[in-house]
């Protein structure tokens, strides 16, 4: 029972990380109608810059600031230099260009930081474990990740439903020309939205740094999961991203945790381990296919 609760928490925490990634990507999809395969690269940039700043200064807060800044600035630079030329073009051109960006960023990190993974540690003030329930010991850092994710979700909700900028962004999504006619600088708006998206990816990256290996290509492993999330949630819907991320996080974690045990009840143990493990790897894709067959536009289809 304790194990189940702990695994649920683990799933929640994975889901939150995925949410930070997907929120940015779904915003860019929904508002700018741009497919960005290189979103994972900004996650990687966040982690690398965060690890470097943390190593140089010893401060996690500075690392956080540096990572967010770097990911945001890199994102805006990419928007201005490459993607801005592609808004009116086919989605496929965006696929090709951002595929090229993945190559570029992955190799650049290897050139700058070398080929081996980078070190990043949990800040001392977030180290250790606390006993949530009797017998349920959980790392403080992972709880902090959950809290940060929840706060970001609230901030995004506030930004979009309560602020002027949020209204402009939403209006820009439904009618680009109209908003420009009203005197809003749509180019700047798009650059900012894209920067916000990559900044969130950078945040996910720097928070993942102390837990995961900081290495070149780390963005692609999470990128595919992110795509799965936003497609399940419904492209362009932040609410969908929340639900999709939690669903994927839970299915993936619980699948890994319990499927092999489940199979062991009716298959020979070595066979069960391998079948269970394979099925666990496939589980989120099975869920995604099922959701799309049931609701072809995702759980929370956006209106346009």
């Amino acid at each position: 029972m304790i194990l189940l609760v702990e695994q649920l928490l683990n799933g929640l925490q994975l889901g939150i990380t995925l949410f930070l990634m997907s929120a940015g990507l779904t915003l860019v999809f929904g508002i700018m109608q741009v497919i960005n395969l290189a979103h994972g690269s900004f996650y990687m940039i966040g982690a690398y810059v965060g690890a470097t700043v943390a190593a140089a200064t010893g401060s996690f807060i500075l690392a956080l600031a540096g990572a967010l800044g770097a990911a945001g600035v890199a994102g805006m630079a990419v928007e201005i230099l490459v993607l801005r030329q592609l808004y009116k073009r086919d989605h496929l051109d965006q696929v090709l260009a951002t595929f090229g960006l993945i190559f570029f960023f992955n190799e650049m990190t290897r050139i700058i930081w070398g080929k081996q993974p980078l070190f990043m540690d949990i800040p001392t003030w977030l180290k250790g474990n606390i006993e949530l329930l009797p017998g349920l010991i959980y790392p403080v850092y992972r709880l902090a990740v959950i809290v940060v994710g929840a706060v970001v979700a609230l901030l995004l909700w506030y930004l979009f439903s309560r602020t002027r900028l949020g209204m402009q962004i939403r209006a820009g999504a439904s009618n680009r020309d109209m908003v420009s006619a009203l005197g809003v600088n749509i180019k700047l708006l798009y650059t900012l939205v894209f920067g916000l998206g990559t900044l969130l990816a950078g945040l996910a990256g720097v928070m993942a740094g102390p837990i995961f290996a900081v290495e070149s290509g780390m963005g692609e492993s999470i990128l595919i999961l992110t795509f799965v999330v936003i497609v399940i949630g419904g492209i362009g819907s932040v609410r969908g991203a929340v639900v999709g991320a939690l669903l994927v996080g839970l299915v993936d974690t619980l699948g890994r945790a319990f499927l092999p045990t489940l199979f062991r009840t009716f298959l020979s143990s070595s066979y069960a381990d391998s079948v269970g493990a394979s099925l666990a790897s496939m589980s989120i894709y099975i869920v995604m296919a099922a959701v799309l067959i049931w609701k072809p536009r995702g759980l929370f289809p956006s209106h346009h």
Partner: protein
Amino acid sequence: MAGGVRKTVLIAGGGLFFCLLPWAAHYFGEQYLVSLFTRILIYSLAAVSLDLLIGYGGLISLGHAAFVGIGGYVTAIFFQHSFEAEPLAGIIPGSENALLVWPLAVIVAAAFAFLIGSLSLRTSGMHFIMITLAFAQMLYYFAVGLEKYGGDDGLSLYSRNQLVGMDLANDVHFYFVCLFFLSLFLLISDRLVKSRFGLVLRGAASSSRRIHALGIHGRRYKLICFIIGGAGAGLAGALLANQTEYVSPGLLHWTMSGELMVMVLLGGLGSLFGPVLGAAVYLLLEETLAMYTEHWMVYLGPILIVVVLFAKRGLFGLLTHRD
């Protein structure tokens, strides 16, 4: 020179180039070029089959590698069972006969395309891209866990298949077999897109609402297109398994699908011959850049971006259109 004439000259020139290549390679003493271009021919076949989907059916599939992988695995699995003289599932004998195994690879790939296609076509747009990706990833992880056939280690063939009247172990023979199949598939595709079926298909890709208003079930046409594309990719997979004498789950990975898509886009969408050019340029770039620098990706990435920004119809469009 008018676009049409240029196109004809380009295709004829390309055809001539491919036909004469083995002799040229022999003349320059560069036998290796034959196997490099065999690889180009096979990837071209896969890319053309994907172009059929994307460029004519409007079906942006990011899971096309799945069918290449299926074709490859069918070939390799039958080889393995024949090599070890142990019938498949206890009853079906293995085989190394190309005339038997290759059509089978095509049929199995087409069957999977039917299955995946009928489910995926319920969605459209971005969701279609992602659901095809999802199915391909499922098959990828399935292959990784397929212990009997090597799992992640993949499966080696100890020689190429046998084809009556040909010696496939001979690189030049095998090259011409691949050239034959690519030409055949190009011919079939060219007829296909101009046929009644193709007309309806292109219509459905252009406006599914309008095709509906004409009283036509667009989805059925798209499904058939998906199956034909899958079959072509399955054949490419069978040939690739023979060329490298090896298959692995890497064939089904999403990056492989991505690379095929890049070849199609690089060459020029919806042009059939464009993807051949795209595959050639992409593979040659990868090959030559990697020979000069270990950081080849830092150059390849920006090259792709430049092509997107400055060649709107891909390289084939750049060569056949005058802007």
